[in-house]
């Protein structure tokens, strides 16, 4: 059985089994999901090991023609970027299932929607056919609505609606863009590889690229279209926030890279300076807004806007040069690092919320005395967010900053100063909620600190952050050849 299809089919089969299972078999449902999560992790690991970085390029290809008349085929394949993002999704899927272990409310439906989302994400990262790419993209987006509406908290109807409308508006931009590409190429194929060989007319590229960039960018938290993301994160249940901020936002960035930049490099180059400005604003703006939030998850939400800004900055710098390789390596590394880090953030913030039913930072105080383990884990995630060396995002940020400093020195200095702002809002949360005199209201939490099973998903995420923090080679060796090949195309 081909590896990529196996990875894609594992959650698909899980979904079918889930639907056939009785409502009451809660334990069984959880176990099956956890098993499928673990299996995808192992398969992704096999993919990681099996991918040969020395030859680079697209590997593990599978093609089955489907609708030959309009050139749609089931075409899967991954390059280095795909490999690490598949890995990311598998890790977040597995840890997400474990995070939601205690869920009691409509377990079957919850996991069914979540697995559907996971299928969509895997599909996007592997598809080399524009039709399937968009198809999976929509599959990944749509389950968010019921997930937030049914299992969410707070103002969930509003948040779910807002998220859905923003993302669909993004898709509404994307769809004509993709169709325009299909028709303009006139190759009668949706195949990404075939299309990327075609050189599009520069005027056309300049016209169509913003459709793709903004369409995908909405999902990547592009300033000023980021409004849905913090609101959505806050209302969603933990594992959904994890998948959402951890993986779903990467779909947007991945789309910009593999569809937008690959097919329309000249359009991308034309627009890059503008989008660099937006990315820099996003980084600084997100940090400043995060500084005044009163809700844990809102802080993380705006920090995601800020950190995804680094990804977008890296992508745009990769087109502008001159430090293209580092910029793209950094952007892709940041996708992975931010994915793991946010998953850790939301999984821990969600835990604290589940136990205390409060997300308001000011409600707490000295929580470090009451829930030392949960707080320590949150602190690790926070430090990763602050770009501390020894954790994965340091390398990603280093590479992007390096490129920024060379290409636009002023923008470079501004985003590096952003590191201080990040530290300010992260430490603010620490000091208000975790340090200081313990609030007697939460004495009952002492007995409910993380233990046993709850520690496993967080431990996995921390381990990943530390491993890539100290051995960035694992990542860079894998993606470097892809980056070189990718940039060599234009």
């Amino acid at each position, binding site marked *: 059985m081909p590896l990529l299809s196996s990875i894609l089919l594992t959650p698909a089969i899980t979904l079918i089994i889930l639907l056939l299972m009785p409502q009451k078999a809660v334990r069984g449902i959880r176990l099956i999901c956890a098993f499928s999560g673990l299996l995808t992790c192992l398969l992704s690991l096999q993919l990681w090991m099996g991918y040969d970085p020395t030859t680079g390029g697209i590997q593990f290809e599978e093609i089955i023609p489907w609708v030959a008349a309009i050139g749609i085929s089931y075409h899967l394949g991954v390059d280095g970027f795909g490999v690490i993002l598949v890995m990311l999704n598998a890790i977040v899927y597995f840890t997400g299932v474990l995070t939601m272990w205690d869920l009691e409310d409509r377990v079957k439906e919850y996991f069914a929607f979540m697995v559907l989302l996971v299928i969509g994400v895997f599909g996007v990262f592997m598809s080399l056919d524009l039709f399937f790419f968009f198809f999976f993209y929509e599959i990944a987006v749509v389950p968010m609505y019921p997930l937030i509406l049914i299992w969410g908290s707070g103002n969930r109807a509003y948040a779910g609606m*807002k998220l859905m409308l*923003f993302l669909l508006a993004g898709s509404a931009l994307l769809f004509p863009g993709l169709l325009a590409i299909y028709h303009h190429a006139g190759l009668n194929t949706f195949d990404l590889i075939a299309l990327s060989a075609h050189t599009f007319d520069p005027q056309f590229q300049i016209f169509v690229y913003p459709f793709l960039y903004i369409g995908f960018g909405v999902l990547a938290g592009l300033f000023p279209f980021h409004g849905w993301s913090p609101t959505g994160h806050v209302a969603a249940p933990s594992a959904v926030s994890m998948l959402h901020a951890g993986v779903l936002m990467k779909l947007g960035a991945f789309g910009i890279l593999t569809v937008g930049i690959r097919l329309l490099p000249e359009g991308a180059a034309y627009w890059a300076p503008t989008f660099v400005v937006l990315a820099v604003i996003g980084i600084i703006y997100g940090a400043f807004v995060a500084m005044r939030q009163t809700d844990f998850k809102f802080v993380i939400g705006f920090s995601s806007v800020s950190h995804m800004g680094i990804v977008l900055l890296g992508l745009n710098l990769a087109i502008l040069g001159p430090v293209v*390789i580092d910029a793209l390596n950094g952007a892709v590394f940041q996708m992975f690092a931010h994915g793991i880090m946010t998953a850790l953030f939301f999984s821990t913030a969600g835990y604290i919320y589940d136990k205390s039913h409060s997300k308001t930072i000011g409600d707490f105080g000295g929580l470090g005395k009451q829930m030392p383990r949960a707080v320590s884990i949150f602190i690790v995630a926070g430090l990763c967010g602050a770009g501390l060396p020894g954790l994965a995002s340091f390398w990603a940020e280093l590479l992007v900053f390096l490129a920024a400093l060379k290409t636009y020195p002023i923008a470079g200095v501004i985003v590096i100063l952003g590191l201080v702002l990040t530290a300010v809002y992260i430490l603010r949360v620490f000091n208000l909620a975790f340090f200081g005199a313990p609030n007697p209201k939460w004495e009952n939490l002492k007995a409910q600190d993380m233990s046993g099973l709850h520690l496993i998903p967080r431990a996995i995420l921390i381990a990943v952050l530390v491993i890539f923090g100290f051995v960035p080679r694992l990542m860079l060796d894998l993606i470097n050849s892809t980056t070189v090949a990718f940039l060599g195309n234009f």
Partner: protein
Amino acid sequence: MDTLTLILLTTISPLACFIIAIIFLVQQPRAAQGLVLCGSAVSLLSAIGLLAQGPVEPLRFLWFQSGAIQLQFGFILDGASLMFGVVVAFITACIMLYSTGYMAHDPGKTRYFAMLSFFAWSMLSFVYAVDLLQSFIFWELVGLSSFFLIGFWFEKPEAAGAARKAFLMTRVGDVGLFIGILLILQLVSNFDIPTLLDPQTGLSTQISPGLLNAITLLIFIGIMGKSAQFPLHTWLPDAMEGPTPVSALLHSATMVAAGVFLMIRLHPLFMAAQDTALIVLSIATFTAILSSTIAMVDTDIKKVLAYSSISQLGFMIMALAAGSLFAGVFHLITHAIFKALLFLCAGIYIHAYHTNSMAEIGRSGGRRLKAATLGLLIGGAALSGVPPLAGFWSKEEIFAQLGHNGFNIYMTGAFLAAFLTAYYTFRMIFLITKPDHTSESDHSHPEPMNMQAPVLLLTLGAILLGFFGTNIANGLGLTAQHHSLLLMIPTVGVVILGILIAYLDYGRNNAPRTGFIGKIAPLNTLFTNKWYIDEVYRITIVAITHALSRILHWTENHILDGNYDRFGLGILRTGAKSTRVQSGWMQLYLGWAIILLAVVALYLGLR
């Protein structure tokens, strides 16, 4: 054992202890403590073993590659790192031993010892780092472990605040350093320290003097943050909120020493950048004087020691900027020993009397604690520069260098700072040993052995270390200059003057017990309020940041997000309004249809 094994033992054993303690030994504080102590001993012995082997070629391993950048991970084993590595490991070991007494009853003991171990790992790895980026990584980790240790008693809001302040302020400096490092990477695609410093092919030969000045200044901003130089020094006195052994560690051989050590590492670059050297010299001299003046009036023993650290760091940086690598290293090492000693003595007093006020300690009978008082006297004298103790020799070197290069104005500044140092140090000694009255009853705890032993060991160091100047110079590959007797006269003179005035103000019988500066009211106010630097920050940088975040938060809620919401709500309302048309009321539909038809007919008819 071969060099690689030794260096790995030196650096990795504290890390291993940290991991084991924090994961497995949270419930067994005694085991954690024992493990960490053993790890520290192994680290110290291996560091000594390395020093005994003498300097060797750096060890390098490929770390990663991205684009044109190739990063190495490795260890530099030259005189400076070998000697300072031993000092770091030695002082860490002393402080860990001392902590077994000081922190004996603290519930968070495992966390405490684990963090100490983490600290030792990051500092030692920083000292031996061969690659500039590797240095930066461990430099940041040193800052991180300081954050956790300063905020160790995080349930105290002051401690949490102090930890945050330390982290943020050093981070401001780190941004400068980071930009400087990235600039280097861009220019030469290389981070290898020996290669960068090579006199024939190094960085200084490849780039213009202006650029070199810019880079070294950026790096110096990082040093200013870490080594608490004006204007980024205000975190250091606040950091006294941590446990006293932590202060001893932070302000002697680790955290603050990291900045100076980075300057030692990159000394040739600073020497090639002449403008930078002059700026650095000015800042360091100013810092030395500024912090001494604050130390003159503070009443808290730890604060006085903290300000004295700032001023002594200023001395080291002065020496380095004036061109003497040896004087900088020498003073760094001697200061590490006697400042650790002084803090540990202060810790004994605080442990015994539960007060930080020097006058209170004196009144409670501080001088009855024999080991502490001995340490205080020797350490204080060494700090003041009383011959023949350690501080005298190293300060002497600094003056010699300043005089040698004709930096007269800076030399005057240094003499002033040295005078003030002697004055405030002996003020501290007299306040503790010659109280105006003593309370009859003695409630003090006895000094436990495990706290006395490190103090006595360090006292010995403070006495003897000064005589090893020649060895240290040889270790650096330099020859020590012989001192002119002419220079010794003013050096000793200012010290004696300082002690004398301190004696008149605080020491003699019926002393006024107010400093001479109290007579000059404006200066006294200025010094007591720490030159109002914190206040200036509060109304400038802090206020601006808050204002910006408030404005942008408002923008997000009212302009960006608000308008999206209004847009969505507008559509909803339009929809709601238009549903009225669909009322299901047949007559109304019919009526509309007739009106519409009439209008169309009218239009067609009139056309």
